[in-house]
């Protein structure tokens, strides 16, 4: 467990009748950390989030958010936590600023502070020029950004974002992820859920992979990669030079060399052998065109994990079909 944790969940469980939506999960999120809850739709991510906000009853277990119990002290939690729901909605007939004004009044900011915070927040997410436009005219990406502006305005210590990037075009996604990184830079802890593994991988410090209401895997992406994919590194090289494969195979730590194309080689090693490989090519006076190490990708980790546990993947498929 983390020493300076802002969210701590122990054995958190949610049941609907006999159906178990979230099954005894435990995790913690540190201050200033970006933590990803990843998994397919229906795996229990949103339910977990709602329990943390006190918006749905906890069946079993306990969660502490900034030291508060959301089931007993929901107002203290909600005052300090910003929440961006899955496909966030705003009042379409009101302007962006008016929507934020309503929220600011609900939070209880005074008039002077309210206007200052709203202007700053809209500026921060790049919506300043749209402040007086009705939200009905906004694109999906703008709505998501307005949702983030609300969290900025609130001055939240934790931002909980449910599927922030789903349904956005690549440009809007990049913008959004930029704002999320900005949160981290300000010391705001971010907990985000997503079923888009690849996109989220780039911003998360640590992730928890959900599957059928349980956390299947948790840790940083490289750690998970080692854990699931095995300890190996894969280094791709594009270079020419006679006898290069043989020379490369002699580098300590390299377990195999594979030809993947004309002048293209793939090294399997138990450590990052890029410096040595580069040195070899240069020593042979070969021309080095490409040298890269394959990062462990969440996609690969996820697929591999479920390949090893086909019965769980089957269950997942059945849930999806249902």
């Amino acid at each position, binding site marked *: 467990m983390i020493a300076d944790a802002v969210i701590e969940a122990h054995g958190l469980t949610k049941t609907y009748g006999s159906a178990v939506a979230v099954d005894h999960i435990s995790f913690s999120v540190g201050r200033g950390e970006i933590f990803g809850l990843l998994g397919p739709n229906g795996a229990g991510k*949103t*339910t977990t989030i*709602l329990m943390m*906000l006190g*918006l*749905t009853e906890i069946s079993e277990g306990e969660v502490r958010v900034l030291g508060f119990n959301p089931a*007993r*002290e*929901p*107002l*203290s939690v*909600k*005052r300090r*936590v*910003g*929440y*961006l*729901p*899955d*496909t*966030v*909605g*705003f*009042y*379409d*007939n009101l302007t962006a600023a008016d929507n934020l004004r*309503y*929220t600011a*009044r*609900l*939070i*209880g900011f005074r008039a002077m502070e309210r206007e200052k915070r709203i202007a700053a927040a809209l500026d921060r997410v790049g919506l300043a020029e749209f402040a007086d436009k009705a939200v009905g005219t906004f694109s999906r990406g703008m709505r998501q950004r307005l*949702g983030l502006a*609300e969290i900025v305005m609130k001055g939240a210590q934790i931002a909980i974002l449910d599927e922030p990037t789903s349904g956005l075009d690549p440009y809007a996604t990049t913008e959004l992820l930029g704002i999320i990184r900005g949160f981290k830079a300000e010391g705001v802890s971010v907990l985000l859920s997503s079923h888009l593994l690849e996109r989220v991988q780039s911003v998360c410090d640590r992730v928890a992979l959900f599957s059928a209401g349980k956390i299947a895997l948790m840790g940083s992406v490289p750690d998970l990669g080692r854990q699931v994919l095995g300890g190996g590194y894969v280094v791709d090289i594009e270079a020419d030079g006679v006898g290069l494969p043989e020379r490369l195979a002699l580098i300590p730590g390299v377990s195999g060399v594979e030809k993947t194309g004309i002048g293209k080689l793939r090294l399997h090693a138990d450590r990052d052998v890029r410096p040595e490989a580069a040195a070899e090519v240069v020593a042979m006076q070969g021309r080095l065109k490409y040298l890269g190490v394959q990062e462990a990708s969440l996609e690969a980790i996820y697929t591999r994990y479920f390949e090893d546990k086909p019965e769980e993947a089957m269950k997942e498929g059945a849930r999806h079909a249902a």
Partner: protein
Amino acid sequence: MQREGSAFSGLGVVMLKELSDHLTSIRFFVLELLVVVIALVTVYLATAQIKETVAEDPFLLLKLFTTARDPSPFSFLFFLSFLVPLIAIGMGFDSVNSEHNQRTLSRILSQPIYRDALLFGKFLGGLATLAIGLVVLWLLVIGLGLLFIGIPPGGEEIARIFVFLLVTIVYAGVWLALALLFSILFRSAATAALASLGLWLFLYVIWPMLAGQIAQIIAPPDPRYLALGLQTPGTAVLEQILSRLSPSTLFGEIVVALLDPTTRALGPIYLSQLQGAVLGAPLPFGESVLIAWPQMVGMIATAIVLFVIGYVIFQRQEVRA
């Protein structure tokens, strides 16, 4: 265990937002326009009728509300009794489900307020809107009455009209609470509107007829009374009890007591009650209110019960779409 903080923090904010939403909505404008036009027409017709027939009545201003141009039954009151539910339903049928459908509910509830504040604020916002509309309407009718008839109203008339206004606001509150309940129950606004309107039609049109039939089945009329061409007391009382389950009946009875000062009782009158009574003489204001008091309490209770049912359901509802 006591929950933290006040259930009413944010209540005023929600109420003001609802009020401003309603007052600027086209829906409210249309409904209010409808009522104002009908008020103008019915009051105009009523004054014409009053000038012809009851020039000596001491309660002329009250007549303005209840008189229709012969031979039509269309008095201001007649329209009011079915337009008020219509407007109230129009204010409430999409108040909670629209938050679901616009996906604003979870965002709003993640702010430091309880659900209580949201629901209560929505009810009060709607009620305030209706109250504003009705006050305007009352002032309009009284003003027109003064212009057309030209006799200043007495203190008692003003008191009766004021209580009539309050009762109408409560009546609107009953239908607002009903519409709010359906807006919690049904995720689709159209379903909620149809269910509210259906129940309103049932209670307003069908139930009074049905109440008589049911009463006759449960307590068949005594043939001896029938032979004399009289209603059997047991049957009549049962019919009245049943028909009072409809808020429309309650409203009608209260209005009769308030606007017709000669009303002595709202149920069957027994001979003993008439001993020493001067028939046709008006009762004082306080006595009229007393006659309708049970009905008023019943109507307020109906509104509260409907709201509480909605409240309990809303508290247990999942916020996710």
